[in-house]
Structures are given as structure tokens and as C-alpha cells.
């Protein structure tokens, strides 16, 4: 009866606009554990079960991209025991995922881990590397797991990549635009989310997707994450549908504004660079087009290098994991 009702409601929700990409701040595991008078790690474990169910509901509702805030860089400030338990739990879940490789490919799931993975224990790094590497070519459902992540670190990382590229001559200073910064963020392979859901009644972003969250519907759900249900998700989706038009209009206006602003900047630069400053309009247009084409080429080449570098990082972790496995097998 329940599943029949869910199917009906799911189909009804899908008659309205469904967000392409949804992000979750899974807050409230520890409070849930305290309330249930159990260990903190049990709360996190329960939170993982809710995540699994939520991903299934998202797929049923037609969402194929999900980003979750699993571990913030700030969480290292927690007690050593809790951080250790979280690391163990994460490793266990990534290994479980790797054991279901056939299912990953059958469902077409691509797992990406966003954050400063190098700060994690080597065994967890290798499990992550393998999971990311084996699923990288799947496209049907994308799961971004933010691990050792803060949005400020993400923006600083993008800024670092860009300034390095300018220093090495791959990019020009005038190539630095909002579009370029956005394309250098960890989330560059997916469009920005349309809906961010935070559980547990807290009403802040806590350093999560600050850049990408600029034009997003924010849904603050009062329930603790382990208690988050299908009906809570449906409620957030219905709320999002009421904002959909406003978000679409705001994004379109923003894109138009940026494009006009860039055109003005390029035109001004072309006129400024000309010797006498009195070029005929047709020539200005042609030079502006050349300038924009040159930028597009440089940015494309740079982004492709960045993408390859990130992929090869995870590939090398996966290779290390395989080498360790082989060594253990020989022993």
C-alpha cells in the first residue's frame, strides 16, 4: 500500500519541474544518536542507511545528480575517536561499493569524491580512488560525495589552479571570468544544483557549495537526517517547484548580464589596444570575435588538462590499491 502510494505521489511530483541536481547537508546524526541513547557511530551508520534510501527515492523522482556533504574539513576538529570511527565507516562503505562493481555498471552510477582527499588515511584514499576510477565513465546517475571539503577551500583551490595557469602562460589574466572559476570547482562535471536540502532544522550552509548555492532553492527540513523520509523529500521538491520560475528567470538574467558585460570588456580592450583608437565597427566586431575564440580555446585546453590531472590522481590511487592487493595475495 505504502509503495503504491509512493509511486502515485512520485508520478504526481514528476508532472512539475524536477530539479536536475539536488544537494544534501546530512545533519543531525549525532543528535539522533543522543536521542536514541546510542553511540555516535550508530547515528552515522543510520545516516548512511538514510542516504542509500534517499538516493533511491531521488532516482525514482527523476533526479540523476546528487551531491552530499559527507565530511567537512572542519570535522577534523571533532574528537579523535569520532573522526576515526567516521573514517572506518567511510572505508567500509567504499569497500562495500567496490564489491558491487557489477551493480554500479548495470545502474550506470558514477561516484565522484570532491575535496582534499590527500588528507585522508592512505587505505581510505585508495578505496576512494578505486571507486572513482571504476565508475568514471558511467553517466546515468552521478553521486558527488564531498569529503574533506569546504566551499572556501574549493574556491581557493580553483583560484590557485587559475593563477598557476596564468603564471605558466596557459591562460591570460583577461581569461579569468566567473565562468572559468565555476568550471574549475570540484563540481565542474555537473551543472550547479537547483535544490539544497539541509536536515535537522539548522538554517545555514556551513561552508557547503557557497559559490554554486547562489541561485538555488534552499530547503531547511526540521527532521534529523536519520529520520528523513520520502515524504520530507517530496515536501522539499514541491517547495522547489514553487521557486522554479524565479530561479530560471534569475539565472537567465544573470547569464545575459555576464555575456553583455564580457562583450563590453572585450570591445573596450580591442579599442584600447588599437593604435589610433578609431577602428571601423566591423573590424572591432571581428577582433572581438577573435579575442573570444582565442579565450575559448585556451580555457578549453586548460580545463581539459585540469580534468585529466584530477582523473589521473584517482587512477594512481586505484593503481596503488591494486598493487597492495597483489602484494597481499602473493604473501
Amino acid at each position, binding site marked *: 500500500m505504502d509503495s503504491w502510494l509512493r509511486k*502515485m*505521489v512520485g*508520478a*504526481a*511530483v*514528476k*508532472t*512539475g519541474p524536477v530539479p536536475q541536481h539536488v544537494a544534501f547537508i546530512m545533519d543531525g546524526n549525532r543528535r539522533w544518536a543522543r536521542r536514541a541513547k546510542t553511540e555516535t557511530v550508530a547515528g552515522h551508520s543510520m545516516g548512511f542507511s538514510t542516504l542509500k534510501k534517499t538516493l533511491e527515492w531521488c532516482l525514482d523522482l527523476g533526479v540523476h545528480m546528487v551531491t552530499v556533504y559527507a565530511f*567537512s*574539513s*572542519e*570535522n*577534523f*576538529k*571533532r574528537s579523535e575517536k569520532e573522526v576515526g570511527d567516521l573514517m572506518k565507516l567511510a572505508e567500509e562503505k567504499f569497500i562495500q561499493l567496490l564489491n558491487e562493481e557489477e551493480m554500479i555498471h548495470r545502474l550506470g552510477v558514477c561516484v565522484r569524491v570532491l575535496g582534499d582527499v590527500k588528507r585522508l588515511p592512505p587505505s581510505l584514499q585508495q578505496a576512494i580512488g578505486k571507486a572513482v576510477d571504476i565508475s568514471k565513465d558511467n553517466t546515468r546517475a552521478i553521486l558527488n560525495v564531498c569529503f574533506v571539503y569546504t*566551499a*572556501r*577551500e574549493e*574556491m*581557493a583551490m*580553483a*583560484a*590557485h589552479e*587559475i*593563477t598557476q595557469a*596564468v*603564471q605558466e602562460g596557459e591562460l591570460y*589574466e583577461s581569461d*579569468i*571570468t*566567473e565562468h572559468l*572559476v565555476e568550471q574549475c570547482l570540484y563540481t565542474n562535471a555537473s551543472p550547479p544544483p537547483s535544490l539544497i536540502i539541509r536536515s535537522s532544522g*539548522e*538554517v*545555514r*550552509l*556551513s*561552508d557547503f557549495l*557557497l*559559490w554554486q*548555492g*547562489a*541561485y*538555488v*532553492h*534552499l*530547503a*531547511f527540513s526540521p527532521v534529523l537526517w536519520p529520520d528523513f523520509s520520502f515524504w520530507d523529500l*517530496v*515536501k522539499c521538491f*514541491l*517547495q522547489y*517547484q*514553487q*521557486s522554479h520560475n*524565479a*530561479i530560471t528567470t*534569475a539565472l537567465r538574467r*544573470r547569464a545575459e548580464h555576464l555575456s553583455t558585460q564580457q562583450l563590453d570588456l572585450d570591445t573596450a580592450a580591442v579599442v584600447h589596444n588599437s593604435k589610433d583608437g578609431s577602428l571601423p565597427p566591423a573590424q572591432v566586431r571581428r577582433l572581438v570575435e577573435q579575442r573570444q575564440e582565442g579565450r575559448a580555446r585556451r580555457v578549453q585546453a586548460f580545463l581539459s588538462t585540469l580534468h585529466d590531472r584530477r582523473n589521473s590522481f584517482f587512477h594512481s590511487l586505484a593503481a596503488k590499491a591494486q598493487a597492495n592487493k597483489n602484494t597481499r595475495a602473493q604473501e
Partner: protein
Amino acid sequence: MLYGMLHAVLCFVLWLSTTLQGLWRSVRELYMLPLAFSGLSVRQIQQRARRWQKIPAHICLAVTDGPVTYEPLARLVMWCMASGVKHITIWDNQGLCKGSSSLLRQYLQKAHVAYFGSSCASHPLVFDEAILAASQKRPCASTTPEEEGCKGADVQSGTGTRIHFCDDDEGRPAIVKAVQEAARLQRNVDVAWLDAKLTATVPELDLVLMFSREPVLHGLLPWHMRVAEILFCGPHRHVTARTFIRAMNSFSRCEQRFGR
């Protein structure tokens, strides 16, 4: 067709539950009902502020619901000042507040005198130097000697509540500009460097009162929003003392863990 009807029913149920929740909240906070129809004096706010466990150091009043009406904003600013808030950012996504900051400044100065009276010198209102410099270039209507007196005290003392006028330029474009500067200076960028650049004039936010039709940030200061409490307060034209007190109560109760 059937699913379309079911969708309409679900939307109606959502609307009904939101309305009932709002009503239930009003019933629970019946003692605040008079505040929905009246203002608050500086003294009344100060009495309430003693009960708050914490007060935000920096409040952002963000307006995205169409043309800005200055009078309610000036009222809100005065309530924030009376609570002891050190920084107030007035932000709107169309740049209207920043664009006509000299007019808004006059509204604020008038409200300052009206609310604080003779004690306005001890609660100075300080405008961002950048805004003052920009407004000096534009002709602006003359102020009364009393207002001039208050303003003089503000600028000289350098303390009190600082008012910042911001728009979209302080959001993503400011981050892009910082990256361009780093590229020009050929220096390595990290969080600390970017933070120093971006929060040099406008510090990090603690509380955002978002006046919008929908719960969307519309590009509001992404760098500064890191741990800010975000409260969506409906249209700014209808803001009442109850909205403000609710927001301050909510901030006072919230537990900020900063990752711990």
C-alpha cells in the same frame, strides 16, 4: 491528467500545512502579537537584548523582492543598532541601495535622530568610507544641523555601528577580481589570502534577514555567507518588530558548532 490533479492536491496540502504552521507559531508566540502592529523604541529593544544569549556582530538585510522601500529598512537598521550589532550590510540584487546610497543615508540619519534623540552621539552611525567617498562626488540634499552633529561624531569616533551598502559586485565578481589580482601579482592563493582580500571592508556575516518571495539567495555574498544563519522573512515592505524579534530570538538560541 490524474497525476496533474494529484499534484494540485499535494500543492494545496503543502500550502495548507505551511499556513497552519504559521498560525500555530503565532498562537505560541501570542505575547509577540502587539509587535506585529507597533514599532519598538530603543529602550524596549535594549531591555529585550539583555535576555539574548548572543547577538550577531554582523547582520545583512538582503532585499530581492522588487523596488526597495527605505523606510522599513531604516527602521530595521535602528533596531539592529539598539541591539548592539556592530556591522549592518544592506544588500539588494539590483544595486538600488548602493546606487542611491546618499538618499538611503539621509533616511538612516533622520531615523537615527528620531530613534536615539540626544543619545545619538553615544550610538554613532558610521558609513563605509568607500560609500562616503562615492556619495561626496554626488550632489545630495542638505541635512539638518542636528543630523550633521551626529554624523560628525560618527566619523570622528570611528566606533559604533558600521553600515555597508553592497550589491552583486561584492559577491562572485569580487572573488573573480581577487583571483585576477593574484594572477597579476603572481602569487599563490590560499583561503587566508582570499579571506583577507574579501573581508577587508565587509566582514563575515552572522545573520542574514532575506526579504524575498522565494528561499533563494540570488547571489548574496557567497564568501561571507560561510556560517551565517539564513532567515527568510517575506516582503521587506511589511516587516514588523515581530519579524525582527523572532530573528534575534532564533539567532540567540542557535548552536553554531563550526564543524565540531
